[in-house]
């Protein structure tokens, strides 16, 4: 495995879950919970004749960004599509809740320094949602994560990090939307219904799941950035994600709250405006919306590098 310095300069997209977890926090600070040596695997997969992974496909742990403890969840898309079952779901929920416990401990011990030591939750999503082999337990785990996120509101920032091969779909698509801050690289994708299912529902003429460009335009990071569903679009280097998380760790909670897209009546009203626009416009393609938001030549945007794109892009103006 690469050392930390090598990881910082490596592609986030190509990295596995453990490399992402290690590289998103400061050098040498990561401690993994229930690491592969513990061999705490899913008891349900062998029953169905499916191989297990010693970390159950999700790396959880704690690291530091300066003095900020960072509670990390990092999903491995190569293991059953990064899907969530009973054990890795439990690990995920426990890790998020530990951030709240740490916040309370730090507040009690360092009341004057809370802002400088405030914990952070960072979830690197690479998942299609519920693991079908243990679907019911996976579904219930999703609800627990949403509940834990709501507990974190106003106390510790919760950051979604999305930029891996599988993207972030199914139930985890709304879990990501429910975070405070979303950081993506260009390859990142977030959605609810995966492209194949849309094709199945609507027909190939309406949505061709094999058309990669169309899939990226619909759920990819550039679209998410334009409609303000992605707060930071960064270059595909683990170090860039690390740097961005360190920046977020310093932002006051009141400002963090403003980076959200859902979670209050006012935000619901803001999203309803977008829904009304889409209902009136009946866009055939995300590019119709990009044009509406002031991008004269929307077809040029997908081809641009991240740096070029960030220089010229026009985004939805938030009310």
């Amino acid at each position: 495995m690469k050392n930390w310095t090598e990881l910082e300069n490596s592609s986030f997209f190509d990295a596995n879950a453990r490399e992402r977890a290690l590289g998103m926090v400061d050098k040498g600070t990561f401690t993994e919970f229930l690491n592969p040596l513990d061999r705490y695997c899913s008891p349900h997969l062998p029953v169905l004749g499916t191989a297990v992974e010693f970390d159950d496909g999700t790396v959880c742990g704690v690291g530091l960004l300066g003095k900020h403890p960072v509670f990390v969840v990092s999903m491995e898309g190569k293991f059953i599509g990064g899907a969530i079952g009973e054990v890795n779901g439990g690990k995920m929920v426990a890790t998020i809740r530990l951030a709240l416990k740490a916040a309370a401990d730090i507040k009690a011990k360092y009341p004057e320094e809370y802002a400088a030591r405030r914990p952070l939750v960072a979830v690197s999503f690479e998942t299609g949602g519920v693991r079908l082999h243990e679907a019911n337990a996976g579904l219930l785990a999703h609800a627990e994560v949403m509940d834990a996120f709501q507990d974190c509101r106003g106390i510790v920032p919760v950051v979604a990090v999305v930029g891996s091969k599988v993207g972030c779909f199914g139930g985890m698509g709304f879990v990501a939307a429910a975070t405070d801050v979303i950081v993506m690289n260009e390859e990142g994708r977030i959605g609810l219904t995966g492209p194949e299912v849309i094709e199945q529902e609507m027909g190939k003429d309406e949505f061709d799941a094999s058309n990669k460009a169309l899939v990226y335009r619909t759920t990819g990071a550039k679209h998410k950035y334009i409609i303000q569903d992605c707060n930071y679009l960064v270059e595909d280097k683990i170090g860039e994600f690390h740097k961005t998380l360190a920046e977020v760790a310093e932002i006051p909670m009141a400002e963090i709250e403003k980076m959200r897209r859902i979670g209050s009546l006012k935000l619901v009203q803001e999203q309803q405006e977008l829904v009304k626009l889409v209902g009136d416009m009946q866009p055939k393609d995300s590019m119709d919306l990009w044009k509406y938001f002031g991008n004269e030549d929307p077809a040029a945007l997908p081809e641009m590098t991240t740096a070029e794109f960030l220089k010229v892009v026009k985004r939805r103006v938030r009310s």
Partner: protein
Amino acid sequence: MEELDNTMIGRGRDAIDMIIDKDSFQENIIDGYSFDPDYGPGSVVGTAKLNGKPTTIIANDAMAFNDRFPVVFGGVIGLEEGYKMATAVYRTMEADKDKPLPEKRAIVLIVDTPGNGPGKMEEIAGMNKSTGGYQLALAEARKAGHPIVAMVIGRAISGAFLCHGLQADHILALSKDFGTMIHVMPLTSIARITKMDIERLEELSTSNPVFAAGVDFFYKLGGVQEIVNQVEDMREVIIRHIDEVAKLKAEGKGELLGPWGRGILGNERGGRTHRMEAIAKVNAEFAAVADKYINA
């Protein structure tokens, strides 16, 4: 599925009448706020009296179509529906924001939904935000003290159940005799996606609560608090659970409710014991290194 003459599938509006005080439903009204009656027709929101107390009702309407978003029919929760349901929750909180805990009105979710809106327009606008926004609203209301009870009368499928049901304090379901369906995917789809043998899956599905479809399995996992065996009993059982939930909240025992409470219940009922064990191990492993991170 065999035809059942007693099923409540598709009968969300009938269920409202069976549950509430007679003729007390004011659709599209919550406190002083009025909803646009044309907006999000796949969901039904409003205020009713339940045992004499004002109660917010949120249900699916499987007979409605949404002209602007054609994927919405048969009880599907679309973009407008999710935000309408979220608004109903926020307006409920607003209505009681200055009232003490015992006076926070209950929210009753009547669940019969096959899915969240699947479509290109839905993905372009971000259907994940609509369903996620509603869930966050319910979680906030639950933590603010409103008793939330979900009654599954028909279909509670996958992400739509997460959206409309799984953030409640307590979840009740009509028994399988009514054709009630709680699952993520039918076995045929699980077989296709996991490439597992359908016969083997069918055999396992008779005994494995972790993946198999059905109300009884969700009960074992703690996902359903109580199974209701008669349609006529829904009203009394809901009222009883609202009172139980309110009592636990008054005693500061919110941790026994909602998704976390269902985890505790799933452990007690023996259906989900590994989750609890994993959580305990993670907590212990952090405790061993906590000083290094707390005192960095």
